[in-house]
């Protein structure tokens, strides 16, 4: 029999106003096993904690029940008190009489009886509690960053700076991400590559960082501190260790009609290519789908011209397995497919471009060497229309777009307008917007500069249709909501600020890492406000747009936050593991494998064990739970047909005792 102490908290008047706390304490004295019951103003205060510790000593308590706020709030506090006073921390139960009683019921008539029932339920459960020991697990002192954009680069740099090893896995042939495609950045008009490239070089040269480009994470197992990750390194068909990056192969390649992904398909590239001039690593990759050698077995020019004989068509994909203590997901975003918006002319006319295509058109390293021109006739546009919120802030039933605000479009449109006006002052720019959103340091000033100093024509309203005209112009038919009139503009070029969405690969990755994602494929944080870079899965963190739309400085700040969380984890030598895990009763288990089939963590294996059962001695196949892998969900304990599997801390008997008490 336990010797139980019951401690009822007033929480000032939070509980005491609608629950007669002294009645609850009085009722507790008549419960089985209870030897001491008391109420106090603030149990979580130092005095309250001392009161509990003293009672444990004075009355030789073996278990305690605290009737207070939610266990999510102070369970850890009271467990620490119990442990300090010499009893097992898992001999503590909390009756939640604040959030789930006093705060949701009007008066004492309603609150007090419920609080008493909740107290009795906790006593019934604690009577069946048994001491549990937390396990320990080691921490692999190496982190994995998935995604090599600015979010991943910054996270990796910050972790490496703290002295830990980091690996970056990037799906594309080069790191750099979306930021490497941008021309200038708002609101300072810094050149994007000029600030990104040094970071990329830093990552490449840091002895603590390894980069796996053209690689993908294909399997993840394990748990916080001990992840085992399978990385598939796709074959470049070029030996990186021999390649000098001279680029002769790319210039001689006869297959040159593949759309250039880096320039968003505005020009073409050879089948053997380096994505962009500052690519890291500066090693070409053969696009096997378009390479003549891979298609027909002929050609082979790149191999012949390579001065260092680095081209090797026989290279195969390589699968490596590595252990990590922590994983950061930084897979970034892309613009949604704008072909769905046919009425705006995207995909119909070459002169309707997306904002990111415009970035490439304005970039000195882009397909037009930075000269702004129409893709149809290479003339410089004089009349330009920007359309905002294409696919952003859509109605929930509009399947083509997203309900959220993509956050960055207002600012980059102002930036693009200013840059165009700077280079070509005779251009007329019209911007159709729903709202202009400019929260951020120097953002509104920047937008006002576009309007006041550069004379960009902002029109509040929507565009209904963009029609290509026979004379090559684009007829834009919109509406001005402020003046309540139709607006018709014959434009030379139309730019669509499309919504951004998380990289679609995140769904696969989320399944591998057991992460939760929202309806828009953004990752969910462990807590939206207080744990914004941690995933609910311990040891997994997030940085960048994978969590929600954000601009570059926000991404960099979040990358730093994720890095410090990783460093905090890697700095530990041992981690405590949850002791509330599944446990089979060897005498009941018949080794049927049902539990292993429902376990989401692969924590259950089967062992042959000698069992003594009623004088019989025989070897049986029975379930065995890996304490490091089991997370304690309890799915197996319900699935077990013989009732052999149980969940420590939430045993069948305990839950039944709670049910019985509630129904009394």
């Amino acid at each position, binding site marked *: 029999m336990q010797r139980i102490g019951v401690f009822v908290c007033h929480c000032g008047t939070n509980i005491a106003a609608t629950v007669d706390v002294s009645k609850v304490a009085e009722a507790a004295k008549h419960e089985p096993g209870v030897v001491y019951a008391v109420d106090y103003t603030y149990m979580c205060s130092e005095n309250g904690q001392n009161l509990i510790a003293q009672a444990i000593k004075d009355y030789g308590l073996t278990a305690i029940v605290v009737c207070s706020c939610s266990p999510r709030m102070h369970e850890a506090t009271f467990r620490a008190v119990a442990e300090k006073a010499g009893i097992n921390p898992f001999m503590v139960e909390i009756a939640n009489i604040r959030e789930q009683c006093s705060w*949701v019921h009007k008066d004492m008539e309603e609150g007090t009886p419920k609080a008493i029932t909740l107290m009795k339920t906790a006593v019934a459960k604690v009577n069946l509690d048994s001491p549990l020991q937390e396990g320990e697990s080691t921490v692999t002192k190496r982190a994995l960053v998935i995604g090599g954009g600015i979010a991943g680069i910054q996270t990796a740099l910050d972790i490496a700076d703290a002295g830990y090893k980091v690996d970056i896995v990037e799906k594309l042939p080069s790191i750099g991400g979306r930021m490497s495609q941008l021309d200038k950045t708002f609101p300072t008009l810094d050149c994007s590559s000029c600030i990104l490239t040094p970071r990329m070089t830093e990552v490449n040269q840091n002895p603590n960082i390894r980069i796996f480009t053209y690689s993908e994470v294909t399997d993840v197992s394990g748990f916080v501190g001990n992840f085992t990750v399978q990385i598939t390194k796709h074959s470049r068909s070029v030996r990186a260790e021999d390649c000098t990056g001279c680029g002769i192969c790319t210039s001689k390649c006869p297959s040159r009609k593949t759309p250039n992904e880096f320039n968003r398909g505005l020009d073409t590239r050879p089948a053997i290519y380096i994505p962009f001039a500052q690519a890291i690593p500066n090693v070409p990759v053969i696009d096997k789908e378009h390479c003549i050698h891979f298609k027909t077995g002929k050609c082979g020019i790149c191999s012949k011209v390579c001065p260092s004989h680095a081209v090797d068509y026989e290279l195969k994909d390589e699968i490596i397995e590595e252990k990590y203590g922590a994983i950061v997901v930084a897979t970034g975003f892309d613009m949604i497919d704008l072909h769905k918006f046919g009425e705006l002319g995207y995909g119909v006319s070459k002169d309707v471009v997306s904002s990111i295509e415009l970035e490439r058109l304005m970039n000195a390293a882009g397909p037009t060497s930075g000269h702004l021109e129409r893709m149809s006739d290479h003339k410089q546009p004089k009349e330009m229309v920007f359309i905002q919120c294409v696919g952003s802030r859509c109605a929930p039933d509009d399947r083509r777009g997203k309900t959220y605000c993509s956050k960055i479009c207002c600012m980059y449109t102002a930036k693009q307008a200013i840059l165009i006006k700077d280079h070509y002052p005779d251009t007329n720019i019209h911007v159709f917007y729903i709202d202009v959103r400019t929260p951020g340091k120097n953002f509104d000033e920047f937008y006002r500069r576009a309007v006041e100093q550069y004379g960009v024509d902002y029109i509040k309203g929507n565009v209904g249709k963009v029609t290509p005209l026979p004379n090559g112009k684009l007829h834009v038919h919109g509406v001005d909501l402020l003046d309540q009139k139709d607006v018709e503009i014959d434009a030379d070029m139309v730019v669509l600020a499309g919504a951004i969405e998380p990289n679609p690969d995140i769904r696969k990755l989320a399944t591998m890492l057991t992460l939760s994602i929202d309806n828009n494929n953004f990752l969910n944080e462990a807590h939206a406000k207080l744990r914004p870079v941690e995933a*609910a899965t311990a040891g997994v963190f997030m940085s960048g747009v994978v969590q929600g739309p954000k601009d570059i400085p926000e991404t960099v700040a979040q990358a730093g936050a994720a890095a410090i969380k990783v460093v905090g984890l890697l700095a530990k030598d041992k981690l405590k593991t949850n002791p509330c895990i599944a446990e089979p009763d060897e005498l009941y288990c018949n080794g049927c494998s049902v539990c292993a089939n*429902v376990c*989401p963590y692969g924590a259950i294996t089967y062992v042959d064990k000698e069992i003594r059962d009623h004088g019989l001695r025989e070897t049986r196949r029975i379930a065995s739970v890996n304490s490091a892998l089991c997370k304690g969900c309890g799915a197996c304990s319900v699935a077990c047909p013989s009732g052999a599997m149980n969940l420590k801390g939430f045993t069948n008997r305990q839950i039944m005792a709670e049910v019985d008490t509630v129904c009394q």
Partner: protein
Amino acid sequence: MPVIEKTASPEAMLEKENLAYLGEADAKKESTFTPKIVAFCCNWCSYAGADLAGNNRADYPADIKIIRVPCSGRVNPLFIMRAFEKGADGVIICGCHPGDCHYTTGNYYTRRRMALLISMLDYLGVDKGRVRVEWVSASEGARFASIMNEFADTIKNLGRNVRLEDIRCRN
């Protein structure tokens, strides 16, 4: 035994039989019927949602008592049968939204198990409305309260559970 009208459904016949068995004292209690409702809430979503309902001071009846489980997949259908046997009038199981389970797949098991349980209750002649499965996330405090209010109303309308209760368990 009162005479039973020929038109009465088997369900109604049994209710009447039971009420007769429970005696007059119980019949009087029916007028001020306060149901016993057990709510199983998963630790990660629904229990947090219930806490949020508290933070928002969203009222729901005190007849509902919450039992915390790590995952809705921990709820054995036998716990629900046990509750009915012990005199519960309704049981509600709350878990994370499908796809959001902290343990990845726990609520999918809940969904299947409870679908089976509910069809079995239906077969036994117990109103299906007495068991409900709801998905409540940690951010849906208001929704938690409104679900609980609605469920309590449903149970009040259904009246006392006389079909499954083992009256030997009654105090």
